[in-house]
C-alpha cells in the first residue's frame, strides 16, 4: 500500500458513505408506497432484498398499484426492462470485481446505479474496488433497513392520497430521470415517451404503455445509431 493507495481508499470510502446514506433514505418511501399499494411487509422486503434495484422496484409496485393483478406481467416486464441497464453495469464492474464465483455472484446482486457510479469513478483499481464494495454493502443494508421502517410507517399512514404519497411516487421517478436528461437525445426521448404514454394510458391496460414506450425507443435508438452513430452515452447517476 502506497500513501497514494491509502488516499484513494479514503476518498472512495467517503464517497460511498455519502451516496449510500442519501439513497438509503429513499427506501423509506419505497417501503411505505409498497405497503399502501397492497403488498404485504414480507413481499415488500422480498422486493428490496432480492430485486434490489430502486427504479425497478418502484415501477413494479406502481404498475400493480394502478392496474391490479391484470397488470402483473406488464409489471414484471417493466421491472425487467428497467433492470436491463444493471446488466451493462455488471459488464463494466466485472474486471474490477475480479475472479471467484461467490464474490462475483454477491457483486452481481449489488451491482446497481450507485455502486457502479462510485465503483467506476475512482482514479485507481484499489479505489474502484473500495468504492464499489463500500457503496454496495452500505446501500444494501441501508436500503433494506429503510424499506422495513417505511413498510411499517405505510401500515400506519393508510390512504396514499391524503399524505400526497401518490405525488411523491411521481416525483421520485422524475428525480431518477432528471440526471439522465443531460443531452438533446435523452431529452427528446423523454418527452416523446411521456407524450406517448399520456396518449396510450386511456386506451390500453396499465403497464402496457410503458412497455410500448420502451420498445419504440429501442427501435428509434438502433435506427439512429445507423444514421447518426456517436459515442455511447455514459450512464450518470446521482
Amino acid at each position, binding site marked *: 500500500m502506497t500513501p497514494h493507495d491509502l488516499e484513494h481508499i479514503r476518498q472512495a470510502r467517503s464517497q460511498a458513505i455519502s451516496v449510500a446514506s442519501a439513497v438509503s433514505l429513499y427506501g423509506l418511501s419505497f417501503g411505505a408506497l409498497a405497503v399502501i399499494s397492497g403488498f404485504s411487509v414480507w413481499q415488500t422486503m422480498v422486493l428490496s432484498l432480492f430485486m434490489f434495484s430502486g427504479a425497478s422496484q418502484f415501477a413494479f409496485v406502481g404498475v400493480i398499484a394502478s392496474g391490479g393483478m391484470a397488470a402483473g406481467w406488464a409489471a414484471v416486464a417493466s421491472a425487467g426492462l*428497467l433492470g*436491463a*441497464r444493471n446488466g451493462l453495469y455488471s459488464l463494466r464492474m*466485472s474486471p474490477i470485481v475480479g475472479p471467484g464465483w461467490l464474490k462475483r455472484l454477491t457483486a452481481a446482486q449489488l451491482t446497481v446505479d450507485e455502486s457502479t457510479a462510485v465503483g467506476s469513478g475512482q482514479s485507481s483499481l484499489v479505489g474502484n474496488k473500495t468504492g464499489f464494495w463500500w457503496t454496495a454493502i452500505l446501500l444494501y443494508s441501508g436500503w433494506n433497513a429503510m424499506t422495513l421502517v417505511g413498510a411499517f410507517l405505510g401500515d400506519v399512514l393508510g390512504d396514499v392520497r391524503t399524505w*400526497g404519497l401518490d405525488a411523491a411516487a411521481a416525483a421520485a421517478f422524475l428525480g431518477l430521470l432528471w440526471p439522465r436528461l443531460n443531452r438533446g437525445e435523452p431529452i427528446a426521448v423523454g418527452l416523446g415517451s411521456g407524450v406517448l*404514454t399520456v396518449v396510450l394510458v*386511456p386506451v390500453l391496460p396499465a403497464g402496457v404503455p410503458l412497455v410500448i414506450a*420502451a420498445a419504440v425507443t429501442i427501435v428509434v435508438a438502433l435506427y439512429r*445509431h445507423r444514421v447518426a452513430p456517436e459515442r455511447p452515452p455514459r450512464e450518470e447517476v446521482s
Partner: protein
Amino acid sequence: MDELWLFVLAASLSVFVIKVLGYLLPQKLLEGPAISRAAGLVTVALLASLVASQTLGEGSGIGIDARIPAVAVAGLLLWLRAPFIVVIVVAAAVAALLRFLGWMP
C-alpha cells in the same frame, strides 16, 4: 401461494438474472455502442413514461389533480439541485396541502 407472490418472485428473479448475466458474458459481446446507447435511452423512456402515468393516470384514464402542481414543484427543486429526499418530501407536502385545503382533488 397467491398470484401477487408469483409476480414478486418472477420480477425479482428477472432483475437478478440480468445482473448475473453481465458477469458471465464475455465483455465484448454486449459492449457495442449501439447496445449501450439503446440501454441508456430505454431507461430514460421508461422513467419518463412512469412520470407521465404516475402524474396523470387515474384508474384506466387520465385525471387532473394535485399531483400536477406537486410534480411541477419537484421539477423546480431538481433544477435548483435540491437533494433527492427533499424533492420527494416537498412534492408529497404540496399535494397533501392542496387536498387538505380542498383546492384540488
